[in-house]
């Protein structure tokens, strides 16, 4: 297995999908000759032609409508929203149209669309480029939200998403694009949607996270190990719908839980995980569930980012609270 960056894994998945199926189309702002502003589609237009990998005019709602329309001609659109913070411009296509179409047409139409977008802080972008908006799209029935935390999953989950007849919002962590490298299996493979993965085995406490929160949780687990606290890290991978069985298994194993998200505390996935645990597995708990999340302010200006974002130390401190609770 070769070691690859997160973004190389994303590109490789699209390359393999284009190769495997002529009906796969990739489009978005600047994805053509330029290869995307992060080079996620670098070289794909040269390899597969302008008919299959192409630029769109600069309008997110138009991109979403294009994807929906193309499904009527049996294409499998992989559309890019340049930054997930721009998603508000395409919310009707995502939430009002593609997510509802299978239901709306009584199962007679499929929406095999992938909405790819980078999200997340840590790179000092201008406003509206870094927000964690997964909570918002996870409230929509009829669409999956997938957030890989490492290169191998980025590739396998993206190939699964492209293969799926249901629409998928596929969120790629901007900070991890180049900073995170990992072993990536060769060739075409799929990683199952709706399935969490144990990113690190442990027995004293479960840290449940996803996307950019997972490397933070793993770093915290590393620190905790030095104090002889064995932390299990569960990587949700798909944040909507949740893998309730895997959540239940880790809760049963450790009885202590800390949920970790990069999003603001009020915004979503962590709360969903906590409510599933409360509803289904509360008798397994030995302590109240801890939560690490960003403050309930609007995403901050670049210079304040480091102070605002969650850190491994925050996770360590919360785990200590939960572990020491009696």
């Amino acid at each position, binding site marked *: 297995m070769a070691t690859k960056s997160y973004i190389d894994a994303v590109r490789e998945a699209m390359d393999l999908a284009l190769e495997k199926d002529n009906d796969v189309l990739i489009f978005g702002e600047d994805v053509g000759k330029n290869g995307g502003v992060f080079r996620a589609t670098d070289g794909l237009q040269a390899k597969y032609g302008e*008919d299959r990998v192409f630029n*769109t*005019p600069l*309008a997110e*709602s*138009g991109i*979403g*409508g*294009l*994807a*929906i*329309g*193309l*499904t*009527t*001609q049996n*294409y499998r*659109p992989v559309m890019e929203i340049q930054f997930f913070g721009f998603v508000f411009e395409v919310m*009707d*296509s995502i939430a*009002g*149209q593609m997510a509802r179409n*299978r*239901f*709306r*047409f*009584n*199962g*007679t139409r*499929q929406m095999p669309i992938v909405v790819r977008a980078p999200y997340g802080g840590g790179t000092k972008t201008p406003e509206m480029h870094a927000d964690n908006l997964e909570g918002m799209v996870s409230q929509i*029935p*009829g669409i*999956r939200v997938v957030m890989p935390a490492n290169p191998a999953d980025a590739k396998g989950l993206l190939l699964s998403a492209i293969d*799926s*007849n*249901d629409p998928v919002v596929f969120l790629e962590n901007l900070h991890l694009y180049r900073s995170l490298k990992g072993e990536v299996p060769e060739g075409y493979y799929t990683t199952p*949607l*709706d399935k969490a993965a144990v990113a690190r085995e442990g027995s004293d406490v479960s840290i449940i996270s996803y996307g950019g929160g997972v490397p933070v949780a793993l770093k915290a687990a590393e620190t905790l190990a030095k104090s002889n606290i064995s932390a299990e890290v569960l990587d949700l991978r798909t944040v909507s*719908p*949740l*893998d*309730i*069985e895997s959540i239940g298994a880790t809760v049963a194993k450790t009885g202590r839980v800390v949920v970790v998200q990069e999003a603001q505390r009020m915004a979503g996935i962590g709360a969903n995980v906590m409510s599933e645990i409360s509803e289904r597995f509360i008798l397994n708990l030995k302590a109240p569930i801890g939560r690490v999340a960003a403050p309930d302010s609007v995403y901050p200006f670049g210079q304040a980012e480091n102070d605002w974002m969650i850190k491994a130390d925050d996770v360590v401190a919360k785990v200590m609270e939960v572990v020491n609770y009696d």
Partner: protein
Amino acid sequence: MVDIVDTNKKALDFDNQIAAQDDTFPMLSVLAADGAIVDETAVKRAELDDDDLINIMKRMLLSRQLDIRSTKLAKQGRFGFFAPTAGQEASQMASSYAFNDDDWLMPGYRDIPQIIVKGWPIWKAILWSRGHVLGNVFTTADDKPVNSWMPQIIIGAQYVEAAGIALGLKKRQKDAVVYAYTGDGGTSQGDFYEGINFAGAYQANAVFFVQNNGYAISTPRRLQTAAKHLAAKGWAAGIPSLVVDGNDPIAMYLAAKEARTWATSGKGPVLIEAITDRLEPHSTAGDDPLRYRTQDDIDAWWQKEPLIRMRKYITTKGIWDQEKEDAYIAEVNTLIDEQIKIADNVPKQKISDFVKNTLEVPSYAMSEQIKRFESEGK
């Protein structure tokens, strides 16, 4: 030599730019309100034979009868949401006559009649109106696919999706187009512009209709935009755009036919603004037009409605008479009666089916819900 001083003067002449809008979009008109032909050349260009003329008349009558019956049924509480269509028969039924089964229809919520003439049975239209999912299955009575999307509720969404269908048809090298309908209010929506602009940028196979019926619920056309013609918005996207007398069936058909030819030849989309009037309320859900327009205005538009002129035209031609019209209306009413019975007898919708249809592969929690609702017979 370009006279730069003169060029600059023109560039800064804002008054002239505003004035020039008036003459930019002359209205295509073939059949006057009294049924007289005002342009014989255009009639020849339309290439409609007697059968075609009768078919268009019948489609318009079908639409009018559906409108009358639906409005009555809505008042009796036997119908759901219904957006009246009276007055728009030419802009809906004569325009759509120019398209084939292979073409894709992107309707707005008032564009139910165009879907019906593509083969979607009336009982499904009734179910759509009543709020039953089987009304959203776009197949014929014998289950063949109908190339239509559902009547779009979100104003303008059908336009961006139409651009996608248009691009898909072009990529698949199909001899087909997408034809999409919105209203005057729809042209204010961002998706309207994104749709025509994307289709234009890709030179894709699309014909876009704006049925300028004077009102978006209560808001008059003049409050939507400073543009003197809605067709001018097509020029901003660089696509051929024209204004048509939307109450003139021959003009509407001719414009649609030529636009379709243009769009299938790889030259890109066309925008057609049809000047018409919504003679009735916005919907049967309590809208009262007299809150925002006068009865005189409504009465004046009734004199110009499309059925009057079409009836006169084909009667003068000797291919139509009152007897034929009465017989056809009776036929339509029998059909509607039968279709209401079918709609009355479809099975009740199930919550378990709703959950099943939300994702192809249900989640853990959804599977629990499906099991629960099935066990409760819901």
